[in-house]
């Protein structure tokens, strides 16, 4: 699924963010926030008062108002979805109401450079995106169950990050907000305190921790001192009542001490509401460091089982992400989740005829070439994933 497309543009002098409308919008105020959709020159109603027109195929005659024509790829757009239209005719889908995996990509900058990063950071000044993010939050359907905030490293926006969380709390109080951050800036106690004071009704920060030993974590994230910052950041967040989830990516550098890391988490961060142990996404920087990082998941089941048991024994809530059932130790199946976003999730030709495919997390579409040698179809089993 494509999330952006270039069309032929007219009348757009700055980025215009709006909701998509296939049907006429009754409320005049909401109309001014809406991109009306035209199909093959036909409009559902008079476009006067709308933000503009997005035209699939031939454009209708709408002189003097913003128009993007000859779109083809974004046919899935529907009422309530949110798009941004840049002056050069670039249409970006920011939010799809029908998806369970919406997120705001706050920035592409990062203060770490993880060896396995699937979205390598860019050195560009994108702090001016903040108004667009705030605008997006205003336009998202308040009935949305879950929204992500991700990056890069979203906390690099500092007060801008806090403003985003606060705005989500005000406009989308019923929407669970999940932030992916390395947590390093919460080393600064006051920053954690400010986030806590926002008192967002349903906020979780997903924070990666890759080793119980500072030097190993720092090497994996390529940032000296990161372990100290993240570890103290986790403590500060708990002190100010911000819920945290700990995320561990499984690869050749994190596997050897994985059970010890589990014990370290249970001892030092028993307040974490969730621990996610995640298979590698074979995309981005990982290919550059493949020799250092790759281990066939079939070869780390013993460590994964030991770590999972330590965490479960301690009463912690554990999930396994990006794992395929045919590789996973049968005892770990109850912890496996289908975690890959719908539009990134695929299965392989080898999976054809597998009896448990509907319970299996499958693969990232972004990279399926390098995978466990143990991938194979399984016979159907009476097992059902827990709800």
């Amino acid at each position, binding site marked *: 699924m494509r999330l952006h497309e270039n069309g032929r543009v007219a009348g757009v002098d700055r980025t215009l963010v709006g909701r998509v409308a296939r049907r006429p919008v009754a409320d005049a105020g909401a109309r001014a926030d809406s991109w009306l959709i035209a199909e093959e020159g036909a409009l559902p109603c008079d476009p006067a008062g709308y933000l503009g027109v997005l035209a699939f195929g031939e454009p209708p005659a709408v002189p003097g108002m913003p128009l993007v024509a000859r779109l083809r790829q974004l046919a899935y757009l529907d009422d309530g979805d949110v798009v941004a239209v840049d002056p050069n005719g670039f249409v970006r889908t920011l939010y799809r109401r029908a998806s369970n995996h919406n997120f705001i990509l706050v920035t592409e900058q990062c203060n770490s450079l993880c060896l396995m990063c699937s979205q390598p950071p860019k050195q560009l000044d994108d702090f001016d995106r903040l108004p667009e993010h705030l605008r997006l939050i205003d336009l998202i359907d308040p009935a949305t169950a879950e929204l992500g905030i991700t990056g890069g490293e979203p906390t690099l926006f500092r007060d801008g990050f806090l403003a985003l969380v606060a705005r989500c709390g005000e406009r989308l109080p019923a929407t669970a907000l999940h932030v992916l951050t390395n947590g390093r800036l919460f080393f600064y106690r006051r920053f954690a305190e400010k986030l806590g004071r926002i008192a967002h009704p349903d906020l979780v920060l997903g924070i990666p921790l890759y080793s119980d030993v500072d030097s190993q974590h720092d090497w994996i994230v390529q940032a000296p001192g990161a*372990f100290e910052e993240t570890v103290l950041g986790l403590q500060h967040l708990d002190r100010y009542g911000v819920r945290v989830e700990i995320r561990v990516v499984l690869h050749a550098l994190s596997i050897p001490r994985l059970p010890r890391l589990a014990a370290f988490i249970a*001892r030092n961060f028993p307040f974490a509401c969730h621990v996610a142990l995640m298979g590698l996404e074979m995309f981005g920087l990982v290919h550059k460091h493949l020799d250092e990082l790759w281990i066939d998941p079939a070869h780390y089941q013993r460590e994964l089982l030991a770590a999972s048991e330590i965490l479960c024994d*301690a009463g912690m809530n554990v999930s396994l992400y990006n794992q395929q059932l045919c590789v996973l130790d049968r005892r770990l199946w109850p912890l496996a989740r289908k975690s890959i976003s719908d539009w990134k999730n695929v299965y392989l030709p080898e999976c054809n005829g597998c009896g448990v495919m509907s319970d299996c997390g499958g693969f990232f579409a972004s990279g399926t070439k390098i995978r466990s040698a143990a991938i194979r179809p399984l016979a159907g089993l009476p097992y059902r994933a827990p709800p």
Partner: protein
Amino acid sequence: MSGYRLLPFRFLRFDGARTLVVNETGEYHFLTNGDFARFTRRELPPDSEVFLDLKAKHFLFDSGSLAPFELLATKYRTRKSFLEGFTSLHLFVVSLRCEHSCHYCQVSRVSADRTRYDMTEETARRALDLAFRSPAPHLKIELQGGEPLLNFERVRQIVLEGGARAAREGRQVEFVVTTNLALLDEEMLAFFRERDVFLSTSLDGPEAVHNANRPRPGNDSYARVVANLGRAREVLGHDRVAALMTATRLSLQHAAEIVDEYVARGFSSIFLRPLSPYGFALRTVRTTGYSTREFLDFYVRALERILEVNGQGTFLVETYAQLLLTRMLTPFATGYVDLQSPAGAGIGAVVYNYDGDVYASDESRMLAEMGDSRFRLGNVHRDSYQDLFGGATLRTLVAASVAESIPGCADCAFLPWCGADPVHHYATTGDLVPHVPTSDFHERNFFIIRHLLSLYERDETTRRIFWSWIREEPLAREEVA
């Protein structure tokens, strides 16, 4: 910074080959004797597994990073957090009378004289006033005796007035009635149900053991407790009634039968308690008593049976082991007034006697019944909250019970998991501070902790069972053999 430096820890030569190291916050690690020597001489190679293990568990540090100190500080605060909130458990002796005449019992009287041995309405009210002066956010009020149901009017008063007061002040209060159940009737049950009261009873084992330990007219204690236990569970709910056992000389020969009795009665916990050296218990030591060694032998056998039962799929927690394991294996604090540092006497729990005297602990009250009222903090009618809880008696007791400062405890590897009991040591030796090498308290706790560590190391099934006790959650069916 080159090389590494040590963080505070204590150690024990655990067996011929291994040394146990335990840090100030109760995390532990087993080292070979050779590694231990290299560790303390600061000769461990920084890339060795053992170096990394000790670093991650905060036994050493090798940089200027704040992380190890901040994490240790948080864990230390967490471990001592039982001190927050001050006195939360308030015991009311509503009557000293009892219709049982147990050999080991501590100070009750078989008597019909209500005026002499029952708590009055005014005394109860003043005691409640004091209980609600406590800054603890959650109060637990335990009504005991004697047999508290012999003075049910007082039980009713305390539960009603205490409940109303908690509601008025927006505080949480929980009521527990410690009763032998023999006199329980439908009116009482209806009241307990309405006011959400918990019951705690005594069950010493199968009929022969229980009735021998707990004589009453008609010799029917067992039949009554079993019948009324069933009725109480029907009315109040299964989990609203807990039971305790006390081991006598007779009990020692019936470890497995006692455990099986708890299983048969559907309990999910059993507390293997030794006799305490007070009251009638001390006087009858020849018939009911035994050495610490004999008790520990019983404890080991009973625990083995409990593990066996758990392994067969029945969830049964041994409460003392659960308490110690929680301290050994988790970062969490456990308040247990008889085993913490400083001790919980007065600052964790307090006793209001039937006559209005206030004691630092139940043991202090028993000692007074034997003629030594050293740990009497005062009286509800004469003394203020400040005098009772800030006075010299309690201050002395607390100061003497900081295990970190007790010779023999201060350098014991098990210190972070253990505690002090100054009243017990005073009662048995005349000194608040124990002489550790000859202390039965030390002998019992040192042995049990060491035994639990050995069991935890022994096999996977035991480990899973121990963790299920800590979580208070039965093992999933597939985890049971």
